[in-house]
């Protein structure tokens, strides 16, 4: 290389890209950030004169940002790049709009629930305590009865739905001919059941147990039955899809060894699909653990500790949040606070369950495919 060409490129480099047939003018790298900052500042200034509001500020900034970036890019770059930048801006805004409710809910629950989420709150049974020596009634805030209730009611519902759901799915995938009327009816009913409003499930369980046991038949078990009605179709559906994914080659490999159909299903098909089945079950649990209406109807609510699912009202976290809010004690503020605490506790429980589900699914994934 000669000295002149080196000097040439050196003088040209800072001014912008080397012109050739494929390059075109470009805005500086962080132009989007600068425009955004500008749009935020300008709209803040405009709104300061007329009256400030967060929503107005954000909307105005977004519009300003899109318009000015579009104009800037059209002038300096070209139409195609301008369109690209504007559309990219729109897509980002759509994404933010979709995330806002989620983040906002989480933040609200955390802010509202964090103050009451103490160790005592989790491990103490709530309710009023009468002290005979001082004749004073003290109100204890506690969610222990609801934590236990949630675990028992959801656990029993899982015990009922998982065997039924998985066996039904095995019947549909492994035994039924696809065109057989029985299989089609079951599939149809399962699809319908997926859409059943949870309140209907609650009424079903309540009336069933009223008929069987008598009036006021509140019990954790009847709530579990209501939840099972909601869970079974989810378990059937997800297990069915997972079993269908197991390639028929594996079944054939097993049959060709003279293995019986039953052993093939239990020892080859299920282990291959187990990770997906567990994920489906966990999703079903997460779906019903936050149910309020059916449990409220079937198990009522209580601030007494009750670990026996077969008699007496039982409370879950979701129901506790509702009841504390709707039927507060004399200390209204404390009741509201405890409602938020129950809500946060429920969210945490669901997060923990999901983490556990992921770990279990990993542990069961076929070796060599991890």
């Amino acid at each position, binding site marked *: 290389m000669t000295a002149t060409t080196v000097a040439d490129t050196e003088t040209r480099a800072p001014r912008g890209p080397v012109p050739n047939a494929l390059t075109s003018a470009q805005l500086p790298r962080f132009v989007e950030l600068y425009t955004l900052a500008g749009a935020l500042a300008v709209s803040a200034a405009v709104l300061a004169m007329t009256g400030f509001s967060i929503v107005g500020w954000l909307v105005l900034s977004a519009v300003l940002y899109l318009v000015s970036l579009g104009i800037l890019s059209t002038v300096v770059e070209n139409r195609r790049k301008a369109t690209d930048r504007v559309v990219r801006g729109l897509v980002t805004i759509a994404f933010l709009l979709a995330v806002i409710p989620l983040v906002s809910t989480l933040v609200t629950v955390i802010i509202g629930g964090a103050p009451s989420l103490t160790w005592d709150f989790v491990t103490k049974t709530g309710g009023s305590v009468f002290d005979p020596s001082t004749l004073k009634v003290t109100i204890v805030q506690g969610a222990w009865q609801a934590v236990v209730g949630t675990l028992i009611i959801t656990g029993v519902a899982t015990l009922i739905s998982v065997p039924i759901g998985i066996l039904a799915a095995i019947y549909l995938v492994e035994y039924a001919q696809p065109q057989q009327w029985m299989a089609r009816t079951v599939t149809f009913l399962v699809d319908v059941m997926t859409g059943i409003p949870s309140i209907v499930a609650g009424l079903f369980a309540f009336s069933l147990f009223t008929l069987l046991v008598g009036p006021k038949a509140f019990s954790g078990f009847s709530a579990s039955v209501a939840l099972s009605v909601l869970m079974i179709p989810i378990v059937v559906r997800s297990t069915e899809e997972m079993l269908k994914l197991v390639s028929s080659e594996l079944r054939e490999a*097993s049959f060709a060894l003279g293995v019986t159909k039953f052993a093939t299903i239990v020892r*080859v098909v299920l282990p291959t699909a187990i990770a997906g089945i567990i994920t489906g079950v966990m999703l079903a649990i997460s779906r019903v653990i936050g149910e309020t209406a059916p449990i409220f109807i079937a198990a009522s609510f209580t601030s007494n500790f009750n670990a026996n699912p077969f008699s007496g009202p039982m409370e879950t976290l979701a129901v506790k949040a509702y009841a504390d809010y709707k039927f507060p004690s004399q200390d209204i503020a404390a009741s509201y606070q405890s409602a938020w605490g129950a809500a946060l506790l429920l969210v945490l429980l669901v997060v923990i369950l999901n983490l556990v589900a992921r770990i279990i699914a990993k542990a069961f994934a*076929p070796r060599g495919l991890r």
Partner: protein
Amino acid sequence: MSKRINVRDLDVYYSDFLAVEGVSMTIEPRTVTAFIGPSGCGKSTFLRTLNRMHEVIPGARVRGEVLIDGDNLYAPGVDPVLVRRQVGMVFQRANPFPTMSIRDNVLAGVKLNSRRMPKSDQDSLVERSLRGANLWNEVKDRLQLPGSGLSGGQQQRLCIARAIAVSPDVLLMDEPCSALDPISTLAIEDLIEELKQDYTIVIVTHNMQQATRVSDKTAFFNIAGSGKPGRLIEYDDTATIFTKPSVQATEDYVSGRFG
């Protein structure tokens, strides 16, 4: 160990579609028989009727007789599970069980059927089968690793080891080498040569050289046109089929003039 197969006037249907029509043949014990013919002429379909594997496909059924040492597979009351314990099968694509180790894959036929077997017997069965499939030296140090971690050729030999571990009398192979490299193919052909001492082997192949190398007898299948049933055109000693076949279509096919 090895058994004679007699097929008498066999038709195979998929629901209403007649896929294979009027096949009759006798396969002698301790021989290798090759099925050749263009794609879709019903080789796999026919092969699967020899151990009732076609029944796994909804709607598939047969008419006619298949006799294994004189016992009709399709007589009323025959248990397909017992049939498949005598007639093993190796598939086109290697399909080791992904949830099992190499050792457990070989023992699959024993373990899946919950047959009790002392550990020392299991060990010797694993070694015998893997040696039989020419795989022992390559995997003896990693029997506990998953079978899906082996190469394609090794996986296919693992599947053969798995098939011979249940000591069948007949071994059916549906294009066992079509997904393999020439070295693995040779390994499997050597293996077939050895297995012939003990088993009756039927192999579907698209590779003419392979048919001439490994088989004693060759059956040529063909179809008249799409939607028509496949038929057995000619069945004779491999040497005869490839040098002076009696049917023109066979000669056209083996000389590469069509198909």
